[in-house]
């Protein structure tokens, strides 16, 4: 076998895997008093089955609504559409507790829906605990994100293909088959595993809306082991099981829907020839109305915090905002760099070395990261670096690292396809011109990557911005982020102020999403 110099991206992939492995190992070793091997009891098994079922259902529904919304939004134009699109990118980063309260404000026993039904004379009681509540919350959080990602991808269909469609006289069905569906096929596997994983480990939501301990996720057991039993080894074991399941699910999804080669340009689309089709107009009208009726009240309920905004505007808030932004910027930089490195490695393996298997393995790494419980990862990594750095500094280092790793799967979704596209478009040309390394990156890749990288950065920043995760472990006056402030106010009975902070978090995320949208839609 001929020796090949490894691609730097491959080293990054290896480094990420090594980091995770080392974190787990450190946790396992810190087990302490007794070697605790994990036996999966009947309860844990039932939990697992439930988690799989709710995550699967949430995923299917989120993808269905998201896809329908994306198509309807792609076909229709209306005033305020760009605002709506930015708002779509926002729901996903909502802190879990804000989402839970939103669901109850709208669908609760005394929620808006109940009020309306009561006014209409309906005598019954609304009960959303169990699957309905969990699915409502998960679809609300994820479907808009799915819609946004697919819509972004639909915008990348070359203008020529739309002109061809109208020149060849495609019916609306043929347009879907030859133009939209290839995009769906490229995007859905990744999105499916992303949403599945997010729902699989969604924890505060499942507990609050599930209605009983039979409706919980594995993450509960991890949390219990970490925070109550202080049995780190057990936590690591359960986390490993979770990672294994999530990886299997991801692999299965990728197997069912293999990613076809991308053939997209970054040109803006012309108006779609299927827009005037009457049945589609009715369908889109229905989808948009139904989608908005579902999403809008939940989103609007967040605005109940508006009245208390003035109560939270103080120095603390300004500092938390700056801290959040700084951490988000660092995490986002890390996420984007890692996404670039991994994407480049995938490209090299797929196109350069002709080994698509390895490329597929690298493709999985970002999503696999989602399966890792951030709290466990933080704990493990902290144990690793503890001998070398001061613990306060350790927190400062880990915060952007863990947030960055958490945002990587999302950044990767933007960056990787563009890298592959640059290769498909200019790969042969650059090798014939002898363009390599930095020069090539500058001339070939950068122009195509600039904008998706911008939007990946904004999205990753928004995600990290809304993240509470590891701040739970390493907070403190010098490390107070907005979500931290939110939970702190909740602990002091200040529910209204917490809702105002929740609104602010979403507003910042909305602005980031807005910028991200402007970058990704601006013509090249």
């Amino acid at each position: 076998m001929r020796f090949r110099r490894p691609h730097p991206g491959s080293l990054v992939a290896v480094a990420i895997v090594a980091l995770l492995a080392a974190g787990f190992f450190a946790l396992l070793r810190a087990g302490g008093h007794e070697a605790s091997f994990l036996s999966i009891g009947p309860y844990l098994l039932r939990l697992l089955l439930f988690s799989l079922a709710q995550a699967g259902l949430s995923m299917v529904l989120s993808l269905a609504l998201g896809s329908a919304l994306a198509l309807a939004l792609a076909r229709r134009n209306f005033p305020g559409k760009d605002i709506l699109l930015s708002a779509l990118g926002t729901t996903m980063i909502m802190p879990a507790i804000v989402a839970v309260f939103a669901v109850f404000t709208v669908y609760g026993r005394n929620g808006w829906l109940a009020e309306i039904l009561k006014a209409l004379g309906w005598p019954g009681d609304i009960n959303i605990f169990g699957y309905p509540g969990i699915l409502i919350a998960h679809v609300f959080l994820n479907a808009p994100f799915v819609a946004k990602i697919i819509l972004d991808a639909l915008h990348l269909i070359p203008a020529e293909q739309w002109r061809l469609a109208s020149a060849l006289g495609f019916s609306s069905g043929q347009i879907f088959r030859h133009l939209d569906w290839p995009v769906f096929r490229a995007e859905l596997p990744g999105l499916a595993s992303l949403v599945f994983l997010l729902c699989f480990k969604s924890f505060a939501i499942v507990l609050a809306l599930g209605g009983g301990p039979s409706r919980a996720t594995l993450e509960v057991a991890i949390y219990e082991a970490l925070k109550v039993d202080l049995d780190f080894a057990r936590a690591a074991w359960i986390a490993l099981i979770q990672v294994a399941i999530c990886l299997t699910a991801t692999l299965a999804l990728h197997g069912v829907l293999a990613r076809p080669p991308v053939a997209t340009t970054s040109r803006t689309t012309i108006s779609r020839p299927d827009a005037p089709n009457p049945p589609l107009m009715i369908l889109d009208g229905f989808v948009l109305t139904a989608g908005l009726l579902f999403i809008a009240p939940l989103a609007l309920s967040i605005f109940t915090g508006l009245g208390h905004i003035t109560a939270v505007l103080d120095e603390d808030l300004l500092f938390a905002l700056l801290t959040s932004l700084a951490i988000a910027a660092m995490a986002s930089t890390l996420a984007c760099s890692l996404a670039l490195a991994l994407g480049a490695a995938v490209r090299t393996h797929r196109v350069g070395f002709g080994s698509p298997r390895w490329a597929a393995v690298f493709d999985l790494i970002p999503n696999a990261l989602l399966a890792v419980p951030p709290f466990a990862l933080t704990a493990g990594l902290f144990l690793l670096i503890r001998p070398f750095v001061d613990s306060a500094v350790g927190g400062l280092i880990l915060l952007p690292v863990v947030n960055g790793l958490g945002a990587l799967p999302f950044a990767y979704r933007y960056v990787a396809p563009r890298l592959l596209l640059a290769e498909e478009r200019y790969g042969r040309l650059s090798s014939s011109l002898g363009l390599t390394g930095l020069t090539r990156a500058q001339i070939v890749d950068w122009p195509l990557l600039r904008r998706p990288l911008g939007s990946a950065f904004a999205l990753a920043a928004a995600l990290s911005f809304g993240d509470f995760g590891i701040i739970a472990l390493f907070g403190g006056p010098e490390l107070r982020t907005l979500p931290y402030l939110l939970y702190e106010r909740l602990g002091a009975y200040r529910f209204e102020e917490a809702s105002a902070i929740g609104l602010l978090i979403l507003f910042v995320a909305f602005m980031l999403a807005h910028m991200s949208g402007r970058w990704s839609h601006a013509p090249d």
Partner: protein
Amino acid sequence: MLLIDQCRLTWPDFSADYSLKVEDGALCALIGSSGGGKTTLLHLIAGFETPQSGTLTFRGSDLLPLQPSQRPVAIVFQDHNLFPHLSVARNVALGLRPSLRLEKAEWALVSEMLEAVGLTGYDHRKPGEMSGGQRQRVALARAMVSKRPIILLDEPFSSLDPQLRRSMIQLVDELRKRQSITVIMSIHTPEEVADVAEQMVLIDHGRVIQAGSPPEVLRTFHSRSSTAPDLPV
């Protein structure tokens, strides 16, 4: 005869006003600096753009009310002509019937057309496995198989190397003569079509500056570009 008479199109930053006659069976080359309005003219004929005023007729019948798919026109773009998820044969077959439900005889026609563009046996390849020149030949085959009397080519070969480009132009010339098709083609490198085109049209600022035989139009083109250099991008 294709007759374009005072077709006006306006955008905030660009306006065009075209008048042009193209004889049946001619190869008409559109030349001029980029951004001058060559593509807009092709899009006008294909039906992707609608003029605010003016007339567009072919053999006496009005084209303007017709949808792009109803016009006697097939088009080949510089890039992205093929759907990457469809095989070469199916990409060509789209030109016959977008439903892809073809009869045996029609599939035979598809193979025949692939043969005519020199791609015998490539039926089951995917576009991603082919070179740029091959892909453009598939697109050409699709345009031909639709049996439309006019074929529009928008800078179809500009991403190919000069030698390949020349042979592709030869191919277009042969095919249109064999099937008596009118070809209107925009091109960056006018010299390469000078010996096959019957008509050359210089377009700039959205207007036809000159239409005539290739040598005279080329003279005007060079005198203009020497005063205002405008290199192809």
